[in-house]
Every structure is written in C-alpha cells, then in structure tokens.
C-alpha cells in the first residue's frame, strides 16, 4: 500500500517537473534557440572520488546525466548535440581504465539501440566522430552498427566524439584535401604533372609567402570596410584569399590548370562537417580550456564553464547557458557574418 502511494507520488512529481520544464522551454523558445550545443563531459572521476565510489560508477553516473541532458536539449528544440566522450589524449590513462571505458561505451551503445530508448523516441541519427581506427574492433563495430541503424533518422542528431582531438581532425582534413587535390591534378592532366607546373606553383607559393604580411593587412582593410554585408560562404571564398586566388590564376595562365586547396576543401574534410558549428560549448567542472575539442568550429561560440561536475549537471545549467546565448545572439551573428 505504502509502495503504491510512493510510486504514485513520484509519478505525480515527475509529471509536475516535466510540465514545469515544458513551460520554461516554452518561455525560452520566445527567443533564439541554439541549433547545436556541444558538451565536454568533465568530472566523472572527481565525482566518484568525492562520494567514495569506484571509478567506474562515476562514468555510469555520467552516462545517466548525458541521457537527461540529451532529453532536455531535444525537448527545447536543439537539433544537434555533440559530446566529447573520449579524447586521443585519454589513451594515456591506465590500460585497465581505458578498457573499462570502452566496455561501458559498447554496452551503452547497445542499450541506446533498444526500442524504448531516447534514440527512437526522438528519431536521433548517431555519428561517431574521430579517428575510429584507433579503437578496439568490438567497440568500433558496435559504433559502425549504431551509425548504420540510425542513418535514416532525420529529426535530431547526436555526435559522439571518440578517439577525437581537434589537432588530429585538422591533420586528417589536410591529408584528405591533399589526396583529393592530387587526384584532381592527375585527372585534369591525364598524365603525370610536369616539372614546369610544379616549379610554377612553387614560385607562386614562395612569392605569396613573401607577400603574406602586405596581403593580410589589405585583406583586413577589406574585411573591415565591407560592413559584413557579404554572406558567409562568399566571405570564405573571397577571403581564402590573397594567395590562393593568385595561385589559381597563375595556374590558369601557365602550363596547365593547377588548382589550389581552398578553405572550403579543408572544412569539407573535417570529421565535424556533418553538423553546423556549435552555438554553445559547455564544459563542466569549471575548467576554462577546450582541451583540443572543436577548436576549429568554436570561433563564434560562447564557452560556458559551470563549476558542477558532469554527473551533477542539471536543467538549471542548460537554462542558464541558453539564456546567455540569447543575450549575446545578435552580437555573435554579426561576428559570423564578418568571417
């Protein structure tokens, strides 16, 4: 009898909280709602230590927090949620800890693919972002399976960064851009590239290198005077830039068309090109650094560092982050147009 009453009370309370939450989200929706929020889930181990628990328990508590935050974000109307689950630097941890983390990830991925999970409730497409080749095969296979199973979902997107670091992402993007450029050069020439064309590109590059400072200040002048009236893609094309335009033009007039790698080529090959840039980045446990996470994508992204540890993160932190985002939205949109 008591158990039933307890159960009913907790159900009622849960229902009331959910109602209140929807009201608050209704109010927040009157302003701009972020399209993409990124989280650095820091503090699981400290949480376990603080409460004298085993380390693995901290990570499990972290996963529960992740599910709650994901639900709140999707209820609010945020389409993309990115989480930093495992960095390439984290491989330096004790092998036992790394293995248990991998096992936890694999277990939770299987759980997420169940019928009643949040993935199916909100039609979430899963992406696992990072150098997945660094992961053990069982984990990698489960991730590839999860991506395949959820590929048809269109309503919401969840990006999980595993074996990820921004520097690795940039290196990978440049490597892929070079490969594409090589193929393009091969295809356009139909034969191996001649000495003359390479010498020409080399000279253009060197000449461009000498002119770097003068060109940059000219471009900065243009950037300032344009009043941000050009749209973002136009800005990227014209501003990427002094040297690249020159090389391409040299190529056109020279022995053959030798195109150059552009900013759009590099950005297209980033792991995170499947989502727009984040609107807010939240790092828990009060740390004020990015730790090699989304460095390229956070140029106009406000960084919020609540002191709470990741398993302690709650609705109030999300509301606070969104309110601050709304407060500075106009300024950040103006900045984005200037890039």
């Amino acid at each position: 009898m008591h158990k039933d009453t307890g159960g009913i009370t907790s159900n009622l309370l849960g229902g009331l909280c959910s109602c209140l939450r929807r009201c608050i989200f209704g109010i927040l929706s009157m302003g701009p709602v972020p399209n993409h929020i990124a989280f650095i889930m820091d503090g699981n181990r400290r949480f376990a230590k603080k409460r004298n628990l085993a380390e693995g328990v901290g990570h499990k508590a972290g996963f529960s927090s992740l599910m709650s935050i994901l639900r709140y974000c999707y209820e609010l109307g945020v389409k993309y949620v990115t989480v930093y689950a495992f960095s390439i630097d984290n491989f330096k941890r004790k092998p036992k800890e790394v293995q248990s983390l991998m096992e936890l990830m694999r277990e939770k991925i299987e759980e997420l693919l169940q019928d009643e999970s949040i993935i199916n409730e909100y039609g979430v497409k899963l992406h696992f972002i990072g150098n997945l080749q660094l992961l053990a095969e069982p984990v990698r296979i489960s991730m590839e399976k999860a991506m395949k199973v959820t590929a048809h979902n269109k309503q919401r997107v969840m990006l999980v960064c595993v074996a990820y670091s921004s520097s690795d992402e940039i290196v990978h993007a440049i490597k892929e851009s070079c490969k594409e450029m090589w193929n393009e050069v091969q295809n356009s020439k139909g034969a191996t590239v001649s000495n003359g064309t390479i010498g020409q590109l080399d000279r253009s590059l060197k000449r461009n290198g000498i002119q770097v400072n003068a060109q940059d200040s000219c471009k900065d002048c243009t950037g300032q005077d344009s009043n941000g009236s050009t749209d973002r893609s136009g800005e990227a094309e014209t501003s990427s830039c002094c040297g690249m335009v020159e090389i391409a033009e040299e190529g056109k007039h020279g022995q053959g068309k030798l195109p150059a790698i552009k900013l759009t080529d590099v950005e297209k090959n980033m792991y995170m090109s499947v989502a727009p840039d984040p609107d807010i980045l939240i790092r828990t446990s009060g740390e004020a650094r990015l730790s090699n996470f989304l460095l390229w994508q956070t140029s106009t992204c406000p960084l919020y560092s609540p002191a709470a540890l990741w398993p302690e993160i709650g609705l109030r932190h999300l509301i606070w982050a969104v309110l601050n985002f709304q407060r500075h939205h106009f300024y950040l949109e103006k900045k984005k147009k200037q890039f």
Partner: protein
Amino acid sequence: MDLKYPARKFSRSLLTMGNVGLQLLWYFLHILLSIWYSIISIRCFIESCFITCGVLEKYKSLNTGKLRYLAIVIESEDAHQTSKVVKLLQWLDSIGVKNICLYDMNGVLKKSKEAIFGKLRNAKPIEEVNEAVTLHVPDHMTLEFVSYADGKEAMVKAANFIFVENLKRQNFGGEIDGQVMSESLLNEALKVVGCKGPEPDLLLVYGPVRSHLGFPAWRIRYTEIVHMGSLNFMRYGSLIKAIYNFTKVHQNYGT
C-alpha cells in the same frame, strides 16, 4: 455550424494572448539576468579595488613563472583605442608578463603596431626575437600581432605548402604518401608560412562574450580561456585575479 467560428476565434485569441504572455515572461527573465550581471559587475569592481590597493593578501605575491606566453583577444571595435591597449601592456609589463600575443579579428591591432611600439619603452616584435619563450625572464617585452587571417587561412596556406612539398618528394609520380602527414609536419609548414608564435598558456578575452573569436585554432589546444569583459572597463585588479587563478590551475592533459 454557427458555433464553430466564434469558438475558433476564441481559441486563436487565447493563443495570441498566451504568446504575448510568454514573450513578456521572456523579457522579464532577461531583465532579471541583466540585473544579476550588474550585481556581479559591482562585486567585481569592489574586489578589483581591494586587489589594487593590496588589501587582499593572497594576490600580493604573484608568481608569473608559470605564465610563459599570454594571448589577449580584443574586440575589433575596441581595438582602435590604442591608448587603452598600451595601458594594458604596461600593466602586464609591471606584473612581469613579457611575452604577449595580441589578437583581434579584423587586424586593427596590426595596423596600430607602430603606434603601440612607439609608446612602449622596451618592446620588440616577435620577428626580431630568436625564441619567444625563454627559460630566463627577458628584460624586454616581446609582442606578436595576430588576426583572423593567421588562423584558418594560414592553415590553408600550410596545406598547400605540404601538398607541393609532397609532390616534389614523390618526384611527381605515384600516390601522395599518407604516412608523411603528421602534426609535427603541419607545425613545420605553419612556421614556413609565417606562423611562428608558440601556444599561449592563458588567453584573456576583452569583449562582450567569452569566445576566442577565431584565434588560430592550432595554438589554443590546452590554453585557459578567461573572460575579462569589455576593454572599456578593464581593471588592474581583475587582471591580477585572472593571472593568479591561472597559476592555481592544474592540468591533467587527458591522463
């Protein structure tokens, strides 16, 4: 039939009233937020005065040894105020922070370079210095001026440089060697295209929002990012506090 139209009109009026109500509540929330930030500003101002006057003991002895390279991001519209920038640099010089990178998105600071060097007693540009970060404390300031063009666009220049070098190494035949591409190679390429500055330990943002505004991504992997507010309201005490808090930070670097 006749009753449906007034019912629909009534529900539409209710919806409109509901929306207006929600919007009013939204404005009210933001007014509360602004009041909260005003209170925080006053508290910071008072704290900064105490720190400047030396009332708070813990800020008196500041060990800046850990802060080898400092970066400052300034909102481009405020960066025109060269006198304020010079004042900030003079404060940093007096605190003992000698190696500084100044960034603003539009390159306003780059254009004010000469004016800034003119007003500082002993400051050298990074191009004239062999090593920006040295073991001993230098007697002069080293200043680096950076803008948005030194971020993503410099990365693209480095990519093109790597491509051409790789082609030459491959003797124009075969596949691009994927193994050759690495972080250290990219570092070298960035130095060749003119991006010599080291990674800053601390990045102070003087602007309305805590955001790095396009500071070269490659250089801020483990950099502490601290928001200082607008350059118009910069305070010596807040600067001391930011540097003091930095000296207390402990990083795991992922381990």
